[in-house]
Protein backbone atom coordinates (compact mmCIF):
# COMPACT_ATOMS: atom_id res chain seq x y z
CA UNK A 1 0.00 0.00 0.00
CA UNK A 2 1.48 3.36 -0.99
CA UNK A 3 1.84 6.11 1.59
CA UNK A 4 2.01 9.85 1.26
CA UNK A 5 5.36 11.47 2.16
CA UNK A 6 4.04 12.70 5.51
CA UNK A 7 3.15 9.16 6.57
CA UNK A 8 6.63 8.46 7.86
CA UNK A 9 7.38 6.49 10.98
CA UNK A 10 10.14 6.86 13.49
CA UNK A 11 10.84 3.10 13.54
CA UNK A 12 9.48 -0.19 12.13
CA UNK A 13 7.87 -1.02 15.50
CA UNK A 14 5.17 1.59 14.81
CA UNK A 15 3.98 -0.45 11.82
CA UNK A 16 3.59 -3.56 13.97
CA UNK A 17 1.90 -1.58 16.78
CA UNK A 18 -0.59 -0.12 14.31
CA UNK A 19 -1.54 -3.62 13.11
CA UNK A 20 -1.92 -4.99 16.65
CA UNK A 21 -4.02 -2.07 17.90
CA UNK A 22 -6.31 -1.82 14.89
CA UNK A 23 -6.53 -5.62 14.53
CA UNK A 24 -7.59 -5.94 18.18
CA UNK A 25 -10.30 -3.31 17.82
CA UNK A 26 -11.66 -4.66 14.53
CA UNK A 27 -11.81 -8.22 15.88
CA UNK A 28 -13.63 -7.03 19.02
CA UNK A 29 -16.11 -4.88 17.10
CA UNK A 30 -16.82 -7.80 14.72
CA UNK A 31 -17.51 -10.09 17.71
CA UNK A 32 -19.76 -7.42 19.31
CA UNK A 33 -21.80 -7.13 16.10
CA UNK A 34 -22.06 -10.93 15.69
CA UNK A 35 -23.04 -11.33 19.36
CA UNK A 36 -25.65 -8.56 19.25
CA UNK A 37 -27.08 -9.92 15.96
CA UNK A 38 -27.30 -13.42 17.54
CA UNK A 39 -29.20 -11.87 20.46
CA UNK A 40 -31.60 -10.11 18.11
CA UNK A 41 -32.23 -13.32 16.16
CA UNK A 42 -32.72 -15.46 19.27
CA UNK A 43 -35.66 -15.16 21.61
CA UNK A 44 -33.39 -14.70 24.64
CA UNK A 45 -34.22 -11.78 26.91
CA UNK A 46 -31.38 -9.80 28.42
CA UNK A 47 -30.84 -6.85 30.69
CA UNK A 48 -28.69 -4.06 29.27
CA UNK A 49 -26.54 -3.62 32.37
CA UNK A 50 -26.40 -7.33 33.34
CA UNK A 51 -22.90 -7.98 34.70
CA UNK A 52 -20.98 -11.22 34.29
CA UNK A 53 -18.49 -12.84 36.66
CA UNK A 54 -15.17 -14.01 35.23
CA UNK A 55 -16.34 -17.64 35.54
CA UNK A 56 -19.62 -16.71 33.83
CA UNK A 57 -17.72 -15.07 30.99
CA UNK A 58 -15.48 -18.13 30.50
CA UNK A 59 -18.46 -20.52 30.56
CA UNK A 60 -20.47 -18.41 28.10
CA UNK A 61 -17.48 -18.23 25.73
CA UNK A 62 -17.11 -22.02 25.92
CA UNK A 63 -20.82 -22.39 25.14
CA UNK A 64 -20.50 -19.89 22.25
CA UNK A 65 -23.67 -18.18 23.39
CA UNK A 66 -24.43 -14.62 22.17
CA UNK A 67 -23.24 -13.22 25.51
CA UNK A 68 -20.12 -15.40 25.21
CA UNK A 69 -19.31 -13.99 21.76
CA UNK A 70 -19.68 -10.43 23.10
CA UNK A 71 -17.60 -11.27 26.18
CA UNK A 72 -14.84 -12.67 23.98
CA UNK A 73 -14.79 -9.30 22.24
CA UNK A 74 -14.45 -7.56 25.62
CA UNK A 75 -11.53 -9.82 26.59
CA UNK A 76 -9.79 -9.19 23.25
CA UNK A 77 -10.09 -5.42 23.58
CA UNK A 78 -8.71 -5.53 27.14
CA UNK A 79 -5.83 -7.76 25.96
CA UNK A 80 -4.94 -5.48 23.02
CA UNK A 81 -2.85 -2.87 24.94
CA UNK A 82 -1.18 -5.68 26.91
CA UNK A 83 -0.06 -7.30 23.64
CA UNK A 84 1.13 -3.85 22.53
CA UNK A 85 3.26 -3.52 25.69
CA UNK A 86 4.78 -7.00 25.20
CA UNK A 87 5.55 -6.21 21.55
CA UNK A 88 7.45 -3.05 22.42
CA UNK A 89 9.49 -4.97 25.03
CA UNK A 90 10.42 -7.59 22.45
CA UNK A 91 11.21 -4.99 19.78
CA UNK A 92 13.48 -2.87 21.96
CA UNK A 93 15.34 -5.88 23.46
CA UNK A 94 18.99 -5.61 22.29
CA UNK A 95 18.24 -2.18 20.80
CA UNK A 96 17.54 0.11 23.75
CA UNK A 97 17.97 -0.99 27.36
CA UNK A 98 15.72 1.70 28.88
CA UNK A 99 12.95 1.10 26.36
CA UNK A 100 13.11 -2.65 27.06
CA UNK A 101 12.86 -2.07 30.78
CA UNK A 102 9.99 0.46 30.59
CA UNK A 103 7.30 -1.91 29.16
CA UNK A 104 8.36 -4.62 31.62
CA UNK A 105 7.90 -2.16 34.53
CA UNK A 106 4.52 -1.03 33.13
CA UNK A 107 3.36 -4.63 32.83
CA UNK A 108 4.59 -5.35 36.37
CA UNK A 109 2.54 -2.41 37.69
CA UNK A 110 -0.56 -3.67 35.87
CA UNK A 111 -0.10 -7.16 37.37
CA UNK A 112 0.56 -5.62 40.82
CA UNK A 113 -2.63 -3.53 40.62
CA UNK A 114 -4.61 -6.62 39.62
CA UNK A 115 -3.17 -8.72 42.46
CA UNK A 116 -3.78 -5.94 45.01
CA UNK A 117 -7.41 -5.66 43.94
CA UNK A 118 -7.92 -9.40 44.23
CA UNK A 119 -6.32 -9.45 47.72
CA UNK A 120 -8.34 -6.48 49.07
Amino acid at each position, binding site marked *: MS*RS*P*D*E*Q*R*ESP*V*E*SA*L*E*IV*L*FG*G*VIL*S*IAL*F*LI*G*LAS*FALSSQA*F*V*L*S*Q*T*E*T*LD*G*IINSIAALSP*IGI*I*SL*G*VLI*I*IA*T*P*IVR*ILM*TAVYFANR*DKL*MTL*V*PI*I*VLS*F*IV*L*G*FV*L*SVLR
Partner: protein
Amino acid sequence: MIDVATLLILLVASVFIGVIGSMLGIGGGIFLVPIMTLGLGIPISVAAATSLVTIIVTSSTSASRFLRKGFVNVKLGMFLEMFTVSGAIIGAVLVTYLTPQSIEIVFGFVLIYTAFYMWLRKEVECRLSEEDPSEAGNVGRFDGSISDDKTGKRCRYAVKNVPRGAIASFIAGNLSGLIGVGGGIVKVPVMNLWMGVPIKAATATSNFMIGVTAVASALVYLSNGLIAPVVTSIAAIGIFIGAVIGSRMMIKMAGGTLRLAFALTLIVTAVLMFVRAGGWM
Protein backbone atom coordinates in the same frame (compact mmCIF):
# COMPACT_ATOMS: atom_id res chain seq x y z
CA MET B 1 -36.81 -5.71 27.95
CA ILE B 2 -34.48 -3.17 26.40
CA ASP B 3 -35.81 0.16 25.31
CA VAL B 4 -34.76 1.04 21.73
CA ALA B 5 -34.54 4.73 22.68
CA THR B 6 -32.02 3.87 25.44
CA LEU B 7 -29.86 1.97 22.96
CA LEU B 8 -29.98 4.84 20.47
CA ILE B 9 -29.11 7.46 23.13
CA LEU B 10 -26.16 5.33 24.29
CA LEU B 11 -24.96 4.75 20.74
CA VAL B 12 -25.23 8.42 19.67
CA ALA B 13 -23.62 9.68 22.91
CA SER B 14 -20.79 7.16 22.46
CA VAL B 15 -20.15 8.30 18.87
CA PHE B 16 -19.95 11.91 20.07
CA ILE B 17 -17.61 11.04 22.96
CA GLY B 18 -15.48 8.92 20.60
CA VAL B 19 -15.02 11.95 18.29
CA ILE B 20 -14.02 14.24 21.18
CA GLY B 21 -11.80 11.63 22.88
CA SER B 22 -9.98 10.70 19.70
CA MET B 23 -9.40 14.31 18.62
CA LEU B 24 -8.15 15.48 22.00
CA GLY B 25 -6.42 12.38 23.39
CA ILE B 26 -8.73 12.05 26.38
CA GLY B 27 -10.69 9.04 27.57
CA GLY B 28 -14.05 10.76 27.82
CA GLY B 29 -15.16 8.94 30.99
CA ILE B 30 -16.10 12.27 32.56
CA PHE B 31 -18.81 12.59 29.86
CA LEU B 32 -19.85 8.95 29.35
CA VAL B 33 -20.33 7.99 33.00
CA PRO B 34 -22.92 10.74 33.85
CA ILE B 35 -24.81 10.07 30.60
CA MET B 36 -25.06 6.39 31.53
CA THR B 37 -25.92 6.90 35.19
CA LEU B 38 -28.09 10.03 35.15
CA GLY B 39 -29.47 9.71 31.63
CA LEU B 40 -29.98 5.97 31.31
CA GLY B 41 -30.18 4.79 34.92
CA ILE B 42 -27.24 2.40 34.63
CA PRO B 43 -25.44 1.66 37.95
CA ILE B 44 -22.26 3.69 38.52
CA SER B 45 -20.01 0.61 38.82
CA VAL B 46 -21.22 -0.72 35.46
CA ALA B 47 -20.90 2.75 33.86
CA ALA B 48 -17.33 3.09 35.18
CA ALA B 49 -16.37 -0.38 33.90
CA THR B 50 -17.94 0.36 30.50
CA SER B 51 -16.12 3.68 30.35
CA LEU B 52 -12.75 1.98 30.96
CA VAL B 53 -13.30 -0.52 28.15
CA THR B 54 -14.39 2.25 25.77
CA ILE B 55 -11.21 4.22 26.61
CA ILE B 56 -9.23 1.23 25.30
CA VAL B 57 -11.35 1.33 22.11
CA THR B 58 -10.71 5.08 21.65
CA SER B 59 -7.02 4.63 22.38
CA SER B 60 -6.45 1.62 20.10
CA THR B 61 -8.52 2.99 17.19
CA SER B 62 -7.00 6.49 17.26
CA ALA B 63 -3.44 5.46 18.10
CA SER B 64 -3.35 3.00 15.19
CA ARG B 65 -4.38 5.80 12.82
CA PHE B 66 -1.92 8.27 14.34
CA LEU B 67 0.90 5.70 14.26
CA ARG B 68 0.30 5.38 10.52
CA LYS B 69 0.64 9.15 10.15
CA GLY B 70 3.76 9.20 12.34
CA PHE B 71 2.14 11.52 14.91
CA VAL B 72 2.82 9.32 17.97
CA ASN B 73 6.03 9.75 19.96
CA VAL B 74 6.28 6.06 20.93
CA LYS B 75 9.30 6.32 23.24
CA LEU B 76 7.95 9.33 25.11
CA GLY B 77 4.52 7.68 25.43
CA MET B 78 5.99 4.45 26.77
CA PHE B 79 8.20 6.33 29.24
CA LEU B 80 5.40 8.53 30.60
CA GLU B 81 2.88 5.67 30.85
CA MET B 82 5.22 4.01 33.35
CA PHE B 83 4.57 6.96 35.71
CA THR B 84 0.86 7.19 34.88
CA VAL B 85 0.17 3.51 35.61
CA SER B 86 2.12 3.56 38.89
CA GLY B 87 0.31 6.79 39.88
CA ALA B 88 -3.08 5.25 39.08
CA ILE B 89 -2.41 2.24 41.31
CA ILE B 90 -1.31 4.42 44.22
CA GLY B 91 -4.31 6.72 43.62
CA ALA B 92 -6.67 3.73 43.79
CA VAL B 93 -5.15 2.83 47.17
CA LEU B 94 -5.23 6.44 48.47
CA VAL B 95 -8.90 6.91 47.51
CA THR B 96 -9.90 5.10 50.70
CA TYR B 97 -8.17 7.73 52.84
CA LEU B 98 -8.91 10.99 50.99
CA THR B 99 -12.05 12.97 50.24
CA PRO B 100 -12.51 13.23 46.46
CA GLN B 101 -14.58 16.45 46.77
CA SER B 102 -11.67 18.65 47.84
CA ILE B 103 -9.43 17.19 45.12
CA GLU B 104 -12.16 17.79 42.51
CA ILE B 105 -12.46 21.48 43.48
CA VAL B 106 -8.67 22.08 43.38
CA PHE B 107 -8.39 20.12 40.13
CA GLY B 108 -11.25 22.18 38.64
CA PHE B 109 -9.37 25.44 39.29
CA VAL B 110 -6.14 23.97 37.87
CA LEU B 111 -8.03 23.00 34.70
CA ILE B 112 -9.42 26.54 34.28
CA TYR B 113 -5.94 28.03 34.72
CA THR B 114 -4.51 25.51 32.22
CA ALA B 115 -7.29 26.30 29.70
CA PHE B 116 -6.41 30.03 29.67
CA TYR B 117 -2.69 29.28 29.61
CA MET B 118 -3.20 26.95 26.65
CA TRP B 119 -5.41 29.44 24.84
CA LEU B 120 -3.01 32.37 25.25
CA ARG B 121 0.37 30.69 24.80
CA LYS B 122 1.93 30.27 21.35
CA GLU B 123 1.97 26.80 19.81
CA VAL B 124 5.26 24.85 19.88
CA GLU B 125 7.45 25.51 16.85
CA CYS B 126 9.35 22.70 15.21
CA ARG B 127 12.13 22.76 12.62
CA LEU B 128 11.65 21.45 9.11
CA SER B 129 14.04 18.53 8.65
CA GLU B 130 14.94 19.50 5.08
CA GLU B 131 15.71 23.11 5.92
CA ASP B 132 18.31 22.55 8.58
CA PRO B 133 19.63 19.01 8.63
CA SER B 134 22.40 19.87 11.09
CA GLU B 135 19.88 20.89 13.69
CA ALA B 136 17.25 18.39 12.68
CA GLY B 137 18.96 15.30 14.07
CA ASN B 138 17.68 13.68 17.23
CA VAL B 139 19.64 15.12 20.13
CA GLY B 140 17.46 13.84 22.94
CA ARG B 141 16.20 10.32 23.56
CA PHE B 142 12.58 11.41 23.31
CA ASP B 143 12.78 13.98 20.50
CA GLY B 144 10.28 13.36 17.73
CA SER B 145 8.90 14.57 14.41
CA ILE B 146 5.51 15.35 12.94
CA SER B 147 4.21 16.66 9.61
CA ASP B 148 3.95 20.44 9.51
CA ASP B 149 0.39 21.87 9.23
CA LYS B 150 1.23 24.34 6.47
CA THR B 151 3.81 22.56 4.34
CA GLY B 152 2.97 18.93 5.04
CA LYS B 153 6.71 18.24 5.45
CA ARG B 154 8.20 16.50 8.49
CA CYS B 155 9.49 18.80 11.17
CA ARG B 156 11.39 17.88 14.31
CA TYR B 157 10.79 18.95 17.89
CA ALA B 158 12.96 18.66 20.98
CA VAL B 159 11.34 17.23 24.10
CA LYS B 160 12.21 19.30 27.21
CA ASN B 161 11.60 18.99 30.95
CA VAL B 162 11.32 15.18 30.92
CA PRO B 163 11.60 14.81 34.75
CA ARG B 164 8.87 17.43 35.26
CA GLY B 165 6.69 15.65 32.67
CA ALA B 166 7.27 12.34 34.45
CA ILE B 167 6.16 13.81 37.81
CA ALA B 168 3.08 15.38 36.16
CA SER B 169 2.24 12.02 34.53
CA PHE B 170 2.46 10.35 37.92
CA ILE B 171 0.03 12.97 39.31
CA ALA B 172 -2.22 12.45 36.25
CA GLY B 173 -2.34 8.74 37.02
CA ASN B 174 -2.90 9.50 40.69
CA LEU B 175 -5.89 11.71 39.83
CA SER B 176 -7.37 9.08 37.54
CA GLY B 177 -7.12 6.55 40.38
CA LEU B 178 -8.57 9.02 42.91
CA ILE B 179 -11.36 10.75 40.99
CA GLY B 180 -11.59 8.81 37.72
CA VAL B 181 -10.45 11.83 35.66
CA GLY B 182 -7.00 13.10 34.84
CA GLY B 183 -5.32 10.91 32.24
CA GLY B 184 -5.28 12.72 28.91
CA ILE B 185 -6.75 15.91 30.31
CA VAL B 186 -3.50 16.42 32.28
CA LYS B 187 -0.97 14.74 30.01
CA VAL B 188 -1.82 16.64 26.81
CA PRO B 189 -1.26 20.14 28.34
CA VAL B 190 1.85 18.87 30.17
CA MET B 191 3.40 17.52 26.96
CA ASN B 192 2.38 20.57 24.95
CA LEU B 193 3.06 23.41 27.39
CA TRP B 194 5.94 22.03 29.46
CA MET B 195 7.67 19.44 27.30
CA GLY B 196 7.61 21.21 23.94
CA VAL B 197 5.58 18.56 22.10
CA PRO B 198 3.35 20.02 19.32
CA ILE B 199 -0.35 19.73 20.17
CA LYS B 200 -1.08 17.12 17.48
CA ALA B 201 1.78 14.92 18.63
CA ALA B 202 0.70 15.45 22.25
CA THR B 203 -2.91 14.34 21.64
CA ALA B 204 -1.78 11.41 19.46
CA THR B 205 0.76 10.28 22.09
CA SER B 206 -1.86 10.67 24.82
CA ASN B 207 -4.21 8.44 22.80
CA PHE B 208 -1.39 5.88 22.61
CA MET B 209 -1.02 5.96 26.42
CA ILE B 210 -4.59 6.13 27.81
CA GLY B 211 -5.45 2.57 26.77
CA VAL B 212 -2.69 1.17 29.00
CA THR B 213 -3.82 3.15 32.06
CA ALA B 214 -7.40 1.99 31.43
CA VAL B 215 -6.34 -1.67 31.18
CA ALA B 216 -4.91 -1.59 34.70
CA SER B 217 -8.33 -0.58 36.10
CA ALA B 218 -10.43 -2.60 33.62
CA LEU B 219 -8.77 -5.82 34.81
CA VAL B 220 -9.83 -5.00 38.37
CA TYR B 221 -13.46 -4.50 37.28
CA LEU B 222 -13.29 -7.71 35.22
CA SER B 223 -12.02 -9.77 38.16
CA ASN B 224 -14.74 -8.29 40.40
CA GLY B 225 -17.49 -9.30 37.94
CA LEU B 226 -18.50 -5.72 37.14
CA ILE B 227 -18.29 -5.85 33.35
CA ALA B 228 -21.68 -5.79 31.60
CA PRO B 229 -20.94 -7.21 28.13
CA VAL B 230 -24.07 -5.98 26.32
CA VAL B 231 -23.94 -2.33 27.36
CA THR B 232 -20.16 -2.35 26.90
CA SER B 233 -20.47 -3.69 23.35
CA ILE B 234 -23.02 -1.04 22.33
CA ALA B 235 -20.96 1.80 23.80
CA ALA B 236 -17.79 0.35 22.23
CA ILE B 237 -19.38 0.25 18.76
CA GLY B 238 -20.39 3.91 19.10
CA ILE B 239 -16.98 4.91 20.43
CA PHE B 240 -15.27 3.06 17.56
CA ILE B 241 -17.32 4.95 14.96
CA GLY B 242 -16.61 8.22 16.77
CA ALA B 243 -12.88 7.50 17.09
CA VAL B 244 -12.57 6.75 13.36
CA ILE B 245 -14.27 10.09 12.56
CA GLY B 246 -12.40 12.01 15.29
CA SER B 247 -8.94 10.76 14.31
CA ARG B 248 -9.54 11.75 10.68
CA MET B 249 -10.77 15.18 11.80
CA MET B 250 -7.73 15.70 14.04
CA ILE B 251 -5.28 14.92 11.22
CA LYS B 252 -6.84 17.64 9.03
CA MET B 253 -7.33 20.16 11.84
CA ALA B 254 -4.97 23.12 12.35
CA GLY B 255 -2.92 22.99 15.56
CA GLY B 256 -4.40 26.28 16.81
CA THR B 257 -7.98 25.03 16.40
CA LEU B 258 -7.11 21.83 18.24
CA ARG B 259 -5.62 23.81 21.14
CA LEU B 260 -8.73 25.97 21.34
CA ALA B 261 -10.95 22.86 21.32
CA PHE B 262 -8.83 21.37 24.08
CA ALA B 263 -8.99 24.56 26.16
CA LEU B 264 -12.81 24.57 25.87
CA THR B 265 -12.94 20.91 26.91
CA LEU B 266 -10.81 21.76 29.96
CA ILE B 267 -13.37 24.42 30.97
CA VAL B 268 -16.29 21.99 30.52
CA THR B 269 -14.42 19.34 32.54
CA ALA B 270 -13.72 21.91 35.29
CA VAL B 271 -17.43 22.75 35.49
CA LEU B 272 -18.25 19.03 35.73
CA MET B 273 -15.66 18.72 38.53
CA PHE B 274 -17.41 21.50 40.51
CA VAL B 275 -20.81 19.90 39.86
CA ARG B 276 -19.51 16.55 41.12
CA ALA B 277 -17.86 18.11 44.17
CA GLY B 278 -21.13 19.84 44.98
CA GLY B 279 -22.94 16.50 44.93
CA TRP B 280 -25.21 17.47 42.03
CA MET B 281 -23.95 14.65 39.82
